[in-house]
Each structure stands twice: as structure tokens, then as C-alpha cells.
């Protein structure tokens, strides 16, 4: 097992790499760790095919997911490994520019990356520039990063054109999460990248980042964080764009079989109300809509309203019917994927917490707000 965390961030000579690395990445089965879980090799191939020595690599350390910590921790502790991944990407994809897109609130992460870059040699150092990602949920989305670097506004735009077709400055662009790039650097060194970084959140004794092999079960991973503080009612796998799972189903599942998304594992204790928790997160996701299209702005607001109605006034057949119907109506109709992520989250809540949603009694409105 090759660990990302707890290992010295030594600066090793860059592995000699060429286009064949993409095949190695493919065989390693590496997928993006920013949330979407898309195949890294496919993404690289698309950029490689179009790059005329003009590609741009965007190192995505925006980490706007509220409970996630792993990207800023990795940037703070393994900046050289991330830079290695970025320089390798630049060589393989024949890039002329690398942008470190780091969340504006992640100060120590940015400092560490700056320091590591200062220890690098020309000409590689000259490829790199910094950009501070606005601290909003959508700012970490691939298209938002490109829009920001082109025009200074971090709202997602519609695809197409895709980043590999026309990204930063109109050039073929790779936007890749920092953890994914660190994995690439390990793969290029010939070491397997068989662990995942998770952020444990909620009712866990020691919330925070853990690193675990893919063969580990979710239950074992949570035990690394001291275990749950009390009997859990649900486990949110993959952050706010992830899915709720029954604890009994989640604990024995191996990480490799789950859609880990951005790696946030949220443990909801039995003492907290799942309906109020879901309503709070839906309100948050609705408030993070960039108001570019109706399905997102009005759709998510309507879904947040209907879930808060159930949370505050108690369950009603009408609200439940609306939730079910609108959740299906909104899907696939947004200008970007923000509404899709939100309704997938909601759909899992309506399944896992079906009983609670059907039998919910009126709660104090304060609790709904507090859980958000």
C-alpha cells in the first residue's frame, strides 16, 4: 500500500513519461476524485488527441464541498506530489500552461503549494500560475473553473464545448482534482495508487481525513475515525451530491464498490432527524444555484420548500407527491449538472428515509435551520 498521507513529501526526479502513461492510468482504473468519478484515462486521451502543444492543465483544489477536508490537507502536506502529477500531465498532454486553482479560503494549502513551487526548477516553474477559486459550491465544477479563468466569473457554463475541445483561452484543457493528480504521480513512479482519501463527518468520534485501501469496508473506514458516536440512522456517501445509505448496507460495503464522489462520508446519528437534515441540505443546494436556468433556480427552491414544509409542519401526502414528481422533472434539464446532483441526493433520501418522510411530525423550525 502506498500512502498519500503520513509520507514525507520528498521531491524525487520526475519519472520519464510519454503517451504510454495514459494506458497505464487506464489499467490502474483511476477515476477522478473531485466528485464526478470520471475515468482519468478517457479524459487525458481526449486532451492528448487535440493538444497542439497548447493544452492547459487546471489543478483543481477549489474544494467547495462543505464537509470535505481531504483536498486542502493533501495540498498542505503533499504539494510536491501534486505538482509532480501536474508536470507529468503537462508532459504527456504537451501543455504550455498549468493553473493551480485553489479555494480562496484554503490559505495554508495555498502557502504550501507556493513554497513547493518555489523549490522547483525552471522551465517547469515558469509554466505555473495561481488562481483563487471563490468559496462557493459551484466554483469547483470543471466548467466554472474554466469560465473563471477565462472571464473571472466562477459560474458553470453549458457543455458543449467540452473542456477538452475549448477550455482555458480556447485551448484543450484538463481540469483535474488534486488527489487525482497525486495518484497519477504515484502511478508514474510505478507504485500502485490503491487507497482513497475520505473525509469522515457527522457523528464520528474523530471527524477528519483518513486514508484507506479500496478493499476496506466503509465500517472499517469509520472505525479508523474512532467509530460512530452513537447508533447511526443513515450514512451519506459522497457528500451533498452523493447518496444516503442504510447503515446496515453501508458498513459491509467495500470502498471499491461504492460511488465515493468527493470522498465525504457523513454519519447521521439516530438522534438527529433525517427529514430535517435533508431539508437543510436541499436548502443549501438551492441557495448555491447560480440562477442561470429555471429548472435549477425554481426547481431546487421548490424542492427545498416542499422538504422544509414536511420538516416544519409535518408530513403531507401532497408535499411528498410534489417532491417525487419534481425530483424527476428537474433531472437532466439544467444548464449544468448542479440540479442533477441535488435531485440525486434527494432521491436517495426519499428512498432510505421513506418511513420518516411519510410519518414526520411537525418540528421546531429552528432545528431545520440548525442542521443546514
Amino acid at each position, binding site marked *: 500500500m502506498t500512502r498519500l498521507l503520513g509520507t514525507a513529501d520528498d521531491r524525487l526526479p520526475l519519472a520519464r513519461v510519454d503517451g504510454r502513461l495514459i494506458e497505464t492510468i487506464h489499467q490502474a482504473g483511476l477515476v477522478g476524485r473531485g466528485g464526478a468519478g470520471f475515468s482519468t484515462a478517457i479524459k487525458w486521451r481526449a486532451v492528448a488527441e487535440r493538444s497542439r502543444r497548447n493544452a492547459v492543465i487546471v489543478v483543481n483544489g477549489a474544494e467547495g464541498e462543505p464537509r470535505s477536508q481531504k483536498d486542502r490537507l493533501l495540498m498542505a502536506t503533499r504539494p510536491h506530489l501534486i505538482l509532480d502529477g501536474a508536470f507529468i500531465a503537462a508532459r504527456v498532454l504537451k501543455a504550455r500552461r498549468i493553473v493551480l486553482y485553489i479555494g480562496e479560503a484554503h490559505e495554508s494549502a495555498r502557502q504550501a503549494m507556493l513554497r513547493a513551487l518555489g523549490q522547483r526548477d525552471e522551465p517547469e516553474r515558469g509554466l505555473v500560475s495561481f488562481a483563487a477559486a471563490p468559496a462557493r459550491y459551484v466554483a469547483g465544477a470543471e466548467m466554472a473553473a474554466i469560465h*473563471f479563468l477565462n472571464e*473571472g*466569473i*466562477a*459560474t458553470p457554463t453549458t*457543455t*458543449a464545448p467540452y473542456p477538452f475541445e475549448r477550455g482555458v483561452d480556447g485551448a484543450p484543457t484538463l481540469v483535474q482534482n488534486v488527489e487525482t493528480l497525486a495518484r497519477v504521480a504515484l502511478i508514474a513512479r510505478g507504485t500502485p495508487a490503491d487507497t482513497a482519501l475520505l473525509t469522515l463527518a457527522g457523528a464520528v468520534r474523530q471527524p477528519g481525513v483518513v486514508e484507506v485501501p479500496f478493499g476496506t469496508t466503509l465500517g472499517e473506514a469509520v472505525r479508523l475515525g474512532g467509530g460512530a458516536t452513537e447508533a447511526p440512522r443513515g450514512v451519506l456517501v459522497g457528500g451533498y451530491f452523493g447518496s444516503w445509505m442504510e447503515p446496515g448496507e453501508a458498513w459491509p460495503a467495500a470502498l471499491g464498490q461504492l460511488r465515493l464522489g468527493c470522498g465525504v462520508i457523513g454519519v447521521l446519528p439516530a438522534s438527529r432527524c433525517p427529514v430535517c437534515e435533508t431539508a437543510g441540505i436541499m436548502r443549501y443546494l438551492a441557495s448555491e444555484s447560480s*440562477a442561470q*436556468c429555471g429548472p435549477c*433556480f425554481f426547481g431546487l427552491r421548490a424542492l427545498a420548500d416542499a422538504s422544509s414544509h414536511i420538516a416544519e409542519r409535518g408530513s403531507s401526502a401532497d408535499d411528498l407527491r410534489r417532491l417525487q414528481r419534481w425530483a424527476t422533472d428537474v433531472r437532466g434539464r439544467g444548464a449544468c449538472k448542479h440540479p442533477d446532483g441535488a435531485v440525486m441526493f434527494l432521491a436517495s433520501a426519499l428512498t432510505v428515509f421513506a418511513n420518516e418522510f411519510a410519518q414526520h411530525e411537525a418540528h421546531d423550525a429552528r432545528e431545520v435551520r440548525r442542521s443546514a
Partner: protein
Amino acid sequence: MSDSLLWYTTRGAGAVTLILLSAVVVLGILSTLRVQSQSWPRFLTTGLHRNLALMTLVFLALHIFTAVVDPFTNLGWGAALIPFTSYYRTFWLGLGVISFELLLAIVATSLIRGFLGHRAWRAIHWLTYAAWPVGVLHGAGTGTDTWSAWMLAITAGCVAAVGVAIVLRLTGGSTDPLATPRTTFRAAVDRREPQ
């Protein structure tokens, strides 16, 4: 008998195409104006717009097919597909071909909008404002029934409906209900240097 059947079909399908296309244009404009009421939700406007547009193509195909295979016209497929190559009413028929091909491009790009991107799709969709008048001119110029009272009424009705819709569109201003929240959100994630 079958020859005159083809000829009547050509003329009938042409008239139906004009009515349908005008309805599609009006519905398209109404959807940008976000027209709605209790009994007419907005998805009805866009749904009708799309379905009638597809139906328009069906009647247009019928119009062209029957005109070409009619042994009396002897047009040939070339004249139906390449503008201004028809020996028969070269100019007026050419307008019809242009209008048809523009509509084909508009429908085809709408069907693959997801691959094309919004901006390119919209740019091509604007060609409707060329396709529709060119089609109307084609009908008025070469239509066998142009000066019969019923066809005059249809043409006048279509022109009036689209005309009114365009005037509403030009004078309506922005009714975008997202304008304010969008500006607010963009301001929050805008890091451009102040000019």
C-alpha cells in the same frame, strides 16, 4: 386522376405547412416572452412548439415529394434540393428550397442541441427569422392558389399572427425572472479587477 391528386396534395400540403410553420414561430416567440396562465402552463408552449415543428417538416416533406414525383411538373430532385436550378419558376421555387433547407438545419441542430452547445444552437435558431419570410414569399410568388380568397385569408392571418408576435417580442423587453438572482450570484463569484 392520380396525377391531379398529387398536384392537389402539393398545394394542400404547402398551405398546411405555412399554417403550421407560422404557429411554430408564434409559439417560439411566446416561449421567449414566458407567456403563461392558469390553464396554459409554459411547458405547453415549448412542447407544442417542438411537436408542431416536427409536424411541419412532415407536411413540408409531403409538399416537396408530391411536387417532385408529379409527372406534370417534371421538376427532378436536383431542383428540389439545389436553390435556383429549377427550369420552372426558377426564382420563386428557389426561395422555397432555401426556406426548406434553413428549416432542416434549425430542426436538426435542435435535435442535437446537447452536443452543439447553447450558443451555436441559438445562433442557428435565429435563422427562423429568415426561413419563415422566405417561405411566405415562396408561397405568395408561386402558389397556384395565392389569389383565391381562402388562401389570401390564410396568408394574411399567418403574417398578422407572426407580425404581432414579433412586435410583442420587440416591445416586451426582458421578462427574465432570473435576472436579479443571477446578477446577485454572479457578483458573489466575480473576481474581475474593477475597471
